């Protein structure tokens, strides 16, 4: 049962998963370019950290994009068929949702594995100055968790009806609108900062996306 769901989901997500896997593999190598052992004058520690940090912004972006696109692709065939086929299958709804979720997680394992391979390779090939160290496994675990969080959030949103998605967008849009109007009217009202801190500061659900994403660090 899981195998056929996985296969059907692969057909919808294969382009996203393939491109994501390639991106995850080459991103670590790009983040240490110029620090190769073959280069005559390797980067100093500060330069290397700054380079790795600047590329590090792309890891959470990639994780969020993968989670979003695979989640959308996961529910796309069911939405197209108005869920009639899914609901007429002889299994409890929670089990069907679990099958869909599990298949997405399995597909998203490919970019995480690719990132691990790319990160190990990049740290191996880079001339790392004394005092610094490569953290390919830690980076991969963080990336995998971020992908999982993004996928879970967007999976839950995508699973809902258009009305649900509309309600969520209305709440977000309403908050922004109120904030903009308050600023325009010179009223001291800060709605976004508390929301942002609840979501993005530890132990907020999206905290994993913030902070420094370093392949090489002290």
């Amino acid at each position, binding site marked *: *049962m899981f195998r*056929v769901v996985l*296969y*059907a989901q692969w*057909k919808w997500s294969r382009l996203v998963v393939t491109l994501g896997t390639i991106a995850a593999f080459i991103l670590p190598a790009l983040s240490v370019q110029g620090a190769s052992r073959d280069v005559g004058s390797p980067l100093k520690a500060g330069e290397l950290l700054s380079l790795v940090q600047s590329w590090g912004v792309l890891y959470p972006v990639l994780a969020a994009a993968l989670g979003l696109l695979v989640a959308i692709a996961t529910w796309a*065939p069911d939405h*197209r*068929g108005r869920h009639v*086929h899914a609901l007429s299958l*002889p299994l409890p709804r929670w089990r069907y949702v679990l099958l869909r979720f599990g298949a997405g997680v399995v597909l998203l394992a490919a970019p995480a594995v690719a990132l691990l391979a790319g990160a190990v390779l990049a740290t191996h090939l880079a001339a790392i100055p004394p005092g610094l160290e490569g953290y390919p496994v830690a980076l991969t675990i963080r990336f995998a968790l971020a992908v999982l969080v993004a996928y879970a959030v967007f999976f839950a949103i995508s699973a809902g009806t258009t009305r649900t998605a509309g309600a969520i967008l209305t709440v977000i849009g309403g908050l922004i609108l109120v904030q903009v109007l308050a600023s325009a009217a010179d009223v001291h009202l800060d709605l976004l900062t508390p929301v942002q801190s609840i979501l993005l500061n530890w132990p907020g659900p999206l905290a994993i996306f913030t902070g420094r994403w370093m392949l090489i660090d002290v």
Partner: protein
Amino acid sequence: MTHAIDIRGLHYRAGRSFEIPSLDLRVPTGAIYGFLGPNGSGKTTTIRLVLGLLRPRAGDIRVLDRPMPRQAADVLARVGYVPEQPHLDPTLTVREAMRFQAAFYPTWDHAWAEELLVAFELDERRLFGKLSKGQKGKLMMLLALAQRPELLVLDEPTDGLDPVVRRDMLAALIDYVSEGGATVFISSHLVHELERMCDWIGVMDQGRLVTELPMERFKNGIKRLVVSGAPPAVAAPFSLLSRERNGAATETWLVRGWEPEMHAFFDSVGASLQRVIDLDLEDGFVELLRTFRTLPPRPEEVR
């Protein structure tokens, strides 16, 4: 008599525009039950309620002797369903769609699925999204039949299909039913199609069940009578659906529950029955609906 589908006091409302106020419907086990009604009458909604795709506000639904939607998973494993709109993943090929379906049904008959694939002349490598309407209909029928279901629920399965495809599909359906004695619940507004194959008929209109009875009784019981000299009010042994004056001399009565021996009734009220006109199923269906719509919406009065 046992019932494959047994609905009692079902109430469902979708927004403000559509309501099934109180539906009682029974599909005898082993019957081919034709579910007739014009577009928008509530046939598809009733089918979705039967399958647990929609939740009723009140009432009981039992399918294959299990309560729905409480035991939907168990029931759906024994039910083959062909929906009004083909709804499969368009990126799957015919073969992949068969594999997908087979994985969910322990009773899936691989050999018969292959036979149907050949009989329906379906290209197994073709994407579902690229199939013609007729081919999609055939594939949906294949998927429903290959499950070897005890109950087949078909929601306008041949709507919009050409006569050849329609005949192929219905032939496969009748073969299956004659082999295994499965129950079929088939909705349609193609009256002649149901007339040929069904042994029970239910008519739905505006969310209400107008009538439910064996096909023979439905076909034979609705007549148009040309009557003269009838008093204004009569207590007839049949249901008088409508009464129209044809000039001064005669009236045309539309009646249900007509039996030939009821002839004598006219003599007893001093009237004269001049002609009995047989109606085919379509005429009967149309007249029934026309009458139903002029009556207060209480199905038990016309049943």
